[in-house]
């Protein structure tokens, strides 16, 4: 069984009965290896559709959790635990509970740094006082507003007034939380979350390949959420200084938010500022200031020093990219694609109205970026399969479009690996308007393929 990966969370969803006889079938050695290779903040096993389990049934998953923690430092645990399941697991592992339990996937997402919906009013209660505090701190750090019930009666009383809270947390236990440099995309900025002591290990926990490819895809503003950083040493200082220098050729900006220098030499701050890193007290000082955002490059990516041109190796594989795209859109819309034209040029979008776009980068044996421009109607139709209903909600369509482009990326990866070309894919990026996309692609040549799906024009663009 493989996990479904969404918004930095990998979730296994076994169904039915979990006991010592069958868990090895649920989770093979290959499945564990594949999980270890995932670049996610959380690895969870959903118990929502498990009607029976015993300790032997959970042990295989718990062993996998330990391996994931060791390799990836991701948060691990079970989710969708109702009262009965929560108590049973606590009973099984009372002295050895070093993974987390969440009452739902939504609750788990609140504790994930990659979760983009922040500022939720969250009511929480746990019999364990230290757990109450730990949850409140984590929620606060993730940008939410925790409200702690002081007793069970207080919790029941507060629960009666459900409309006051966006979310209520029950049956949740925080084990060891993730230590990965979590990544999330907010608008056109990428936010990395760092915490505790920053030392030479930052080189391992920070995904440099992802960062470099985000630069290639057009991201220009990188914010380090450093509220939880206690101190940093000279190795970490060197790491960030180098990161800033390497981003300079792309005109990228690196900011630190909430970093306290109580236990870190102030000279470090000067050194980092010399390297071009900027410091802010609050995240909102940047994210709520549109002028500043523009100045820092979060809305524009046109000023790239070294524009890279599409090369032969990428063009040779064009057919694989187009095939992956058309097959995916055909699958999602149940329509057939007709290729109308293909040309090497700068991207040209004749009619920008009612169009949305998405891009995904790839890197490894070859690197580049695929851009897809959808008429809104195709996007909506393609998303219906994933959402299950028609929607006009642009945010939801863009989110689902990102999943769709992820499928395209996955298919490209498979097609290329058949030819022994190994690539990884970046997080997808979506654009509500074509103008914001064109800022990224300005001056870049690539292969533009015009396609038509049941009469609707669709544009594919492959560039570097």
């Amino acid at each position, binding site marked *: 069984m493989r996990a479904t*990966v969404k918004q930095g969370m990998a979730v296994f969803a076994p*169904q039915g*009965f979990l006991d010592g006889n*069958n868990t090895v079938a649920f989770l093979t050695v290959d499945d564990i290896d594949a999980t270890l290779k995932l670049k996610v903040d959380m690895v969870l096993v959903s118990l929502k559709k498990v*009607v029976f389990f015993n300790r032997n049934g959970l042990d295989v998953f718990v062993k996998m959790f330990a391996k994931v923690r060791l390799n990836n430092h991701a948060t691990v645990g079970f989710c969708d635990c109702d009262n009965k399941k929560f108590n049973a697991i606590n009973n099984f592992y009372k002295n050895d509970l070093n993974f987390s339990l969440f009452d739902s996937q939504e609750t788990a997402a609140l504790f994930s740094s990659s979760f983009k919906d922040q500022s939720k009013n969250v009511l929480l209660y746990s019999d364990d006082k230290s757990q109450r505090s730990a949850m409140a701190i984590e929620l606060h750090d993730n940008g939410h507003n925790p409200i702690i019930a002081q007793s069970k009666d207080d919790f029941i009383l507060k629960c009666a007034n459900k409309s006051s809270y966006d979310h209520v947390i029950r049956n949740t236990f925080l084990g060891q939380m993730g230590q990965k440099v979590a990544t999330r995309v907010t608008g056109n900025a990428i936010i990395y979350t760092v915490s505790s002591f920053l030392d030479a290990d930052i080189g391992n926990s920070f995904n440099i390949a992802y960062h470099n490819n985000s630069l290639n895809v057009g991201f220009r503003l990188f914010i380090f959420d450093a509220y939880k950083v206690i101190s940093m040493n000279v190795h970490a200082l060197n790491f960030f200084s180098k990161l800033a220098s390497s981003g300079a050729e792309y005109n990228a900006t690196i900011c630190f938010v909430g970093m306290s220098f109580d236990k870190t030499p102030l000279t470090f701050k000067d050194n980092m500022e010399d390297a071009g890193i900027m410091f802010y007290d609050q995240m909102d000082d940047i994210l709520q200031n549109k002028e500043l955002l523009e100045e820092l490059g979060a809305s524009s990516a046109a000023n790239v020093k070294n524009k890279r041109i599409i090369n032969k190796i990428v063009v040779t594989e064009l057919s694989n990219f187009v095939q992956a795209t058309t097959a995916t859109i055909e699958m999602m819309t149940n329509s057939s694609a007709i290729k109308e034209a293909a040309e090497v040029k700068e991207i040209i979008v004749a009619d920008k109205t009612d169009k949305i776009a998405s891009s995904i980068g790839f890197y490894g044996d070859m690197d580049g970026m695929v851009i897809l421009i959808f008429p809104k109607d195709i996007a909506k139709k393609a998303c*219906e399969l*994933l959402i299950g209903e028609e929607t006009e909600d642009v945010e939801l369509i863009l989110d689902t479009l990102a999943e769709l482009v992820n499928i395209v990326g996955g298919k490209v990866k*498979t097609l290329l690996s058949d030819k022994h070309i190994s690539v990884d894919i970046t997080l997808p990026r979506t654009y509500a308007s074509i103008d914001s996309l064109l800022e990224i692609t300005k001056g870049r040549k690539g292969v533009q393929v015009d396609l038509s799906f049941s009469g609707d024009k669709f544009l594919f663009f492959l560039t570097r």
Partner: protein
Amino acid sequence: MITKDKIDFYIEKIPPTPKVLRDTLLLLNSGELIRAAHIASEDLALKSYLKNIVNKPIYGFKNEVSDITQIFGILGVSSSQQTVYQYMLNLLSPKKWVLFKLNASSFTDLQARLSQNWKLILKHLNIDDKEVESAITLLPASIIISEALFHERMEDVHLLRSVHDLDFNTILVRLCGVDLFDICEQIAHKWEMSDKIAHIVQAASGIKPSNDETINTLAKWMHLLLFYELSQPLFIEAGLNNFIDFQVDFVADIYDDFAALMEIE
């Protein structure tokens, strides 16, 4: 990926009940076991299937049973009818499974396990009705249909499922407005199975409860039994554990009874 036309084409090419099977079922319905066995013996494939399935360990016979009259005699009218239906369904199954890691033997194992445990459940519920007993035979049709409709787009389906937790039934409904159990019902009609069989299997999907209280109760037991079997290592490895959505709430009120009956500890 899958269109309504493709589904219609699939249903259209399902052959009608062969004459030998129809005659065998008619005779079984009227309780004429010996004459039914005589007719069934004319179909060598059916004969071989019957021998193969009743000699599986789950049936618990100490010595090999090979004579069809003997087989029908041991099984009785209801189970004989059920086994003939299982054979019909087997005719639909692919020679080579691609989407699910199954083969003729493991699929027959699934049929046999479902059949034997269903019998146990009906005994527990004090139900003696040969149509209800036969209803379990139609349930694995949903697996055969998934294989037939999705095997050509296996990689696409796997990619889709890697980013979004969708089961085959939901994918089919969203693409074509028809679900696996609607197709099972059409197969039941084509094979002149009783409406009751089709209704129980429809309700056993867990997403279309019946207004008939008895059918609904049977559907809950059938739904839970299916997931009990799909939690066996052989079928998890075959990729069947999450081919349709397990409706935990649907079976909540019968779970304790089920666990006691199946001796789950």
